[in-house]
């Protein structure tokens, strides 16, 4: 009979760790900035790419999907929802809300385990 060994110590996705990582990325890119239509493309790309890079550095066997929505702060409404079909013991999600005086930012991280 073959033994099945788990390589990682913890089971499931560590949402707190991901939360901290992404929050730092967003603070670094958007901190102190005001909403600017010319830069928003670049900022969103930076946030998402930096988050992905840091998540990969954790070294866990996961596929990641990171989405980022940056909305100008105004009197108008915005709603987001997500629905997932996956293995709830190994996969997970984490959502980060960040805001400043001129904009709101929502980052979603979805992590799907790769079974090695």
């Amino acid at each position, binding site marked *: 009979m073959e033994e099945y060994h788990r390589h990682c110590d913890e089971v499931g996705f560590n949402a707190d760790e991901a939360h901290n990582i992404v929050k730092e990325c967003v603070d670094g890119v958007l901190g102190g900035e005001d909403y600017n239509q010319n830069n928003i*493309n670049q900022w969103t790309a930076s946030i998402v790419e930096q988050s992905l890079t840091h998540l990969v550095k954790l070294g866990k066997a996961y596929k990641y999907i990171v989405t980022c929505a940056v909305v*100008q702060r*105004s009197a108008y409404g*915005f709603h987001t929802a997500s629905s997932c079909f*996956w*293995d709830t013991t190994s996969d997970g999600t984490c959502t980060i809300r960040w805001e400043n005086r001129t904009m709101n930012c929502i980052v979603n991280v979805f992590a*799907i385990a790769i079974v090695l």
Partner: protein
Amino acid sequence: MMSDSAKDRALHSLRKKGGLSPLSGLEFHRREVQARSKDSVSSVSYVDEPSQRDEISRLTVRMENTYQLGPMKHFPMVIINCILKDVLTNYLQEEKYKPELCRQMTKTLSEVIKTQVKELMIPRYKLIVVTHIGQLKDQSLFIGSRCLWDPKSDTVSSYIFRNSSLFALASVYAVYSE
């Protein structure tokens, strides 16, 4: 002026096996009340409670090798596009933006799209459906995403719907489970 502090609850991964779906709803709704503005809070509308039985069963699951290198059947993106277009158009064509309605609508749309995509019964694929609805006015926003996956087997599809008072963006991510 700082708004009232908002509760922020992230969705935690569930402990129940069987691929049951967690549904998370997040909303930003801002209403001008005289000179103040208020943030509404994020809320989780459906979460399964963990059960003790699952703790035990989680530890004893063993998977055998399938010796399969890639998906037998790829995800039909054309059909997904049609599903997205139909669902968004049918649900939102006649609607005007109303905060309560759209709050519920995002969750409903995510569930409906996910159910329809599941009915295609493509084996070994995990799904993520993300929906955004916003009021169509003069504000500016930007939505982007990046994925770290195997591009040969995993895909994404999205559709934007607009009418006179609102816009909606729905995306479906399909990830092959190796």
